[in-house]
Each structure stands twice: as C-alpha cells, then as structure tokens.
C-alpha cells in the first residue's frame, strides 16, 4: 500500500470514528420518540384513570392506573363519591391501586382518583351477579382498597 493510500485509510478511519461516535450510543437511547403534536403535551390537562376490565362479578379485584396527574402528590380514591383510600403519584404523575369488590352488591360504581379539583378523573366499573371474577393482571401493584368497609378480625383458636 502506498504511503498516500495508507494516509487516506487512517484519515478516513479517524473521521468515521468521530462521525459514528453518536451512532454507537444507539443501544442506550431506545426507540425514536412519538409524533410531536399537541396531544403529547395535553395529558396534564386531563388526567386519565384506566381500569383493566370494565365489569366483573362481585368479589372481583380491579386494577386501576391513573396518569397525567401532578407528580409526587397525594391522590384520594373515591367510590361513588366516598373516599376509600389514598395513593401517592410517582414523579411521572402516575399512580396505581387495586379495588377489591368483596361484599359489594351488583351495581355500577364510579371510581374517582383525584389530587385536587383540577386533577381528577373518573372510571366506572360494573358488578354483575353472573359475571366472571376479575383478577388483577400479573405484575399489578399498588395498595388495595375496598368498596365495602371490611374489618378482618384475628382468627383465634381455643387450645
């Protein structure tokens, strides 16, 4: 290889190293971001409360996930307007909880997760007598709340 060719190869190699340095980070960057539109930033104005299933038999345990809430804030869970518990939102403004319907009568229930008057979302579930028992999807997390106030008494056995 002539000296000129050798120099060219070295120069191209060095140039490629600099040019492709950023490309080498691809495994750490992840997928390209979503489309850039107003919907990308509008979530903060309308928090959303999702549930894994819209209906189930009494005794079902529903998994709720809230998003678009103020970050790191205490959010109260209401069922038909009555407070049943509270959860903290995470730094991304999301929160999860489970709702146990043990002992609840078949009916429609409005479940609300609210941080304040400006950050509130409601989702309805329906309990049907002949429905199937709903269980939380694998990996669901969060505190469990009950539609009916339940006291678990200690199980005492006489020796």
């Amino acid at each position, binding site marked *: 290889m002539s000296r*000129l060719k050798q*120099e*060219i190869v070295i*120069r*191209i190699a*060095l*140039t490629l*190293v*600099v*040019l*492709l*340095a*950023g*490309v080498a*980070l*691809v495994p750490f*960057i*992840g997928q*390209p*971001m*979503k*489309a*850039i*539109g*107003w*919907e990308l*930033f*509008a*979530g*903060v*104005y*309308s*928090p959303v409360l999702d549930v894994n299933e819209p209906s189930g038999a009494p005794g079902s345990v529903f998994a709720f996930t809230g998003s678009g809430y103020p*970050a790191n804030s205490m959010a*109260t869970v*209401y069922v038909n*307007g009555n407070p049943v518990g509270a959860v903290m939102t995470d*730094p991304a403004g999301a929160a999860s909880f489970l709702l146990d319907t043990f002992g609840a009568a078949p009916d429609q229930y*409005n479940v*609300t997760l*609210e941080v*304040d*008057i*400006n950050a*509130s*979302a*409601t989702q309805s579930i329906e309990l049907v007598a002949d429905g199937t028992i709903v269980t939380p999807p694998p990996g669901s997390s969060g505190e469990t709340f009950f539609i009916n106030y339940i006291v678990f008494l200690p199980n005492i056995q006489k020796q």
Partner: protein
Amino acid sequence: MIKQAESLMTPRPGSGSAALRRLIFWLDWTAAAAFGLPFLLYWLTAAPTIYNLDSAEFTTAVASNGLIRATGYPLYLLLGKLWSWLPLGADMGYRMNLFSAFNGALTILLADRILRRLDVGGWARMGALGLLASAPFFWALSLIAEVYTLHTALMAGVILALLHWADAPTPGRFALPVLLMALSLGNHAATALLVPGAVWFVLTRHPRQLLRPRVLLAGLGAMALGTAVFLILPLRYAAQPAFNYAGLYDASGVFHPTNLQSWDGFWALITGQTFAGQMFGYHLHELPPQLIAYLKQLWFAFFAIGVGPGLLGMAVLWRKDWRLNGMLAFMFLANAIFYINYRVIDKDTMFLPTYLIFALWLGVGYQTLIRWAAPSAKPGNGRFRPESVVQWAMIGAVVLAVGANWQRVDLSDDWSTREQSQAILDQAEPNALIFGWWDTVPAIQYLQLVEGQRPDVTVINRFLISPEDMNQLILTAINHRPVYINNPSIALLRETTVTAVGPLYRLEPKNRQVLTHR
C-alpha cells in the same frame, strides 16, 4: 443575501436580461439556500389552520389585539400583528404558523452567517444547519404559531452582532446586540439566560470598551429603545381587550384584569411570577432522569451522527477562540441547566437555544473533519478524494434526518384543533358556559373572536380562575344556563349529574335545593 448589492444599483449599459444575469451571478446562493430550503420544508409541513395549546393563545391574542399570560410576549404581539397583515391566505391561524416558519428559516440563515465568520465552508455549514433545521423539535416549532423560533432568530442575531462588534468595537456596533437582546426580552424572558455569555464575551474581548462613556450611553440608549416594546402591554390593557390572559375570574364569573398600568401588575406579568413555582422545581434525586432525557433529545435532534462532530467542534473552538466559545458555552449551559430544572410538561420544546449553539459547534466540527480527511498530498486528477466522502456523509445525514423526522412532525393535514373546537361549539347549547384548559379553550376563543362564531357562549380557561371560585360559579350557573367542563372533580360529581358531550361533560343540578343553599 445579495453580495455587493451596491454594484447592482449602478446603472450599466445592457439589456434587462443582462441585468438579470448579473443578479443571478451576484446572488449569494448559499445564503439563499440557507433560508429558502428550510422555509420550503416548513411551508410544506406547516399546520394548515389554528393549532392547539399555547399556539392558539398566541394566534388569538395577535389577531384580536389581546393580552397573553406571563411573560406578556409584547414583541411577538407586535411583530405577529405586522406579519398577520401579509396576504398569505385567509386563515389567520395558518398565517401565524408561517410566521414561525419564517423565523425558523431566518435562524438558519443567521447561523449560516455566524459559521461563515468562523471560516466554516459550505459543505460543513449545510450539513450542520441541515440537521438543526430538521431537528424534530426545531422543525415542529417552525410549523405552528409559537415564540421559540423568533427567540432563536433573535439569539442568532445577538451572537452575530456581538461578533460584528468584536471586529471593530464602536458605540454603534455595541448598541446593536444590546438592542436585539432588549427586544428579544420582549419576545421571551429566557433571553436573560443569554446575558452571562454576552457579558463574558464583551469583558474578555474588549473590556476597556465598557469604560468609555459613549459606549455606555449607546448601550443604555439601545436598552431603553428595545425595552420600550413592553409599553404595548399597558397600552393594550387600557383598551380592555376581549381576549385577556392576564387576570382572574371571580366566583360570579366577572373577570378582573391585572392592572398593567400599575408597576406591581406590570412587573408580575413580565417576570412570570405565576410560573416561579415550576422553576428549579425538581428535587436533587429527580434530576438524573431529566438530564438523561435532555441528552437523548439532543442525540435525536442531531440524528446521532452530529453528536461526535459537535463535541469535536466545541473542543476545536476552545483552542481557536476561547472567548467566543466561552460565550457559546455559557449560553448553552444556562439554557440547558434552567430548562432541565424547569418542571413543566412541555419543556422538551424549550431547548432550541441549546440546539442552535450545538449546531454552531457541529459546523466547526464538520469543517475540522473535512480538513482532517483531506490527505496532505493531493491525489492526482480523477483520484479518490476522501474529504468528499465526509462531505457527502454530512449531506446524506441531513437527507436521512428529513426523511426520518417528516412523519413525526408533519402537520400539513392536521385540522384536529379546529375540528375539536368546532365540535364543541356545535354541541354547546345557547348561552353555554364552558370550562377547560389550554387544550380546549384558546382555540374556541379563536373561533369566537377571530371568526365571529357563537358569541353567546362564555369560555373560561381554568388557569384564570381558582378551583374554589370555579366550583362556586358552576354550582350557581347550572341553575340557569348550560355548563360544560373538560374534567369534573369529585366535588362536582357529588352535586351534579354529569353527561359526556363530545370531549366535554355537561353538568346539571342533581338537587336544586342543596345547590341553591351553597
């Protein structure tokens, strides 16, 4: 854009076609391309009508001579008004979207001039500024009415004016960057983040200049002239505009505008005190993810391939001109640090000043690579030229970036805001009262104030009323007029019957007796 324009002014013998040939000869094609190509790109992909969120607020305020929330944006209101008179189509929303396209392209043109002064060649300039022009957020914000591309254009103008002053410091040349910076404050308060860098440059380049009374006088005069744009705010306040986002509604639905003719009201608006809580709003342990998110955004912005050369350019410029690079570094860091720590949902849109600085570094880095790739001994005619590989790789990266980002940013067929607002107005009953946020309210107000639709409907942005006053107003109003809200709270759910109507909810009294006594 015209080289030696004065030569064209001199009468010369010859026909009209000869004059045209001279014009074509003298036209600075690279400058024309630096403005024309990005403008073409933005024109092809611009939103065709009113867009949502802040964009709707800016457009409506410009069109109706209204007032915007903090920090007031008086320069945008002024320039936007002038722009809106251009015959660019019947739709005011579209015209204002093109204003951002113009400012985006102007930013690229001015950045091109800066890079020329740094001896960066045409290929490197085209490669670096092509990536800036097609960076997702820079591109996206050139397609809708927003203040950000005007901000970057003014920022590029400030840098260029400072370089011009540094060549031959005179009071007049000193006044220009000061004037631009003062004007820029009237467009975006984040101009304050450019001040440390500019002060650094002035103090390290010609420190004694600041001791000269004439220079100081020129600077103070320019500052007074530039900040005079803020007088628009009290003047518009005096006219009691229908569209006013500087003030608050009370529980009876009466709007109390902030008194912009008092110093307290004026100062509170232009300093953005309503957003003070979001500034440096993260705890220390929350910052690493924010920093990583920003670095990823920068990586995407320069399409991966610009990252290495950009860092190289920064290092090269340190050695070549540490004073200039100090200014750029201060501007970059001040903006990056401030916005990384700013707790707002749309902060991804606010990093454009850092993009501009990085693009300048990238231009220097690309030029370094082109020189680097060229062999010391020139190959003979027809032989392989390695620097041409680098040059075509830079242009190829721009073409790929345009292709890859087009789908992400293209708004040329996005009528969603107009359709949503139109649907809400169509479904609203006569004399309705509507509550919502930026994603619903300003665009409805645009249809009302700019296009004259449904003046019977009252629309209130929840940002402009306290939660308690809003609840009280709703619970009073539902007894005698239709009330809609975007997302009812538990307090409203308890006391009203809620029915979904399009993207809103219609509230009706559940128990009039109870509500009457509230």
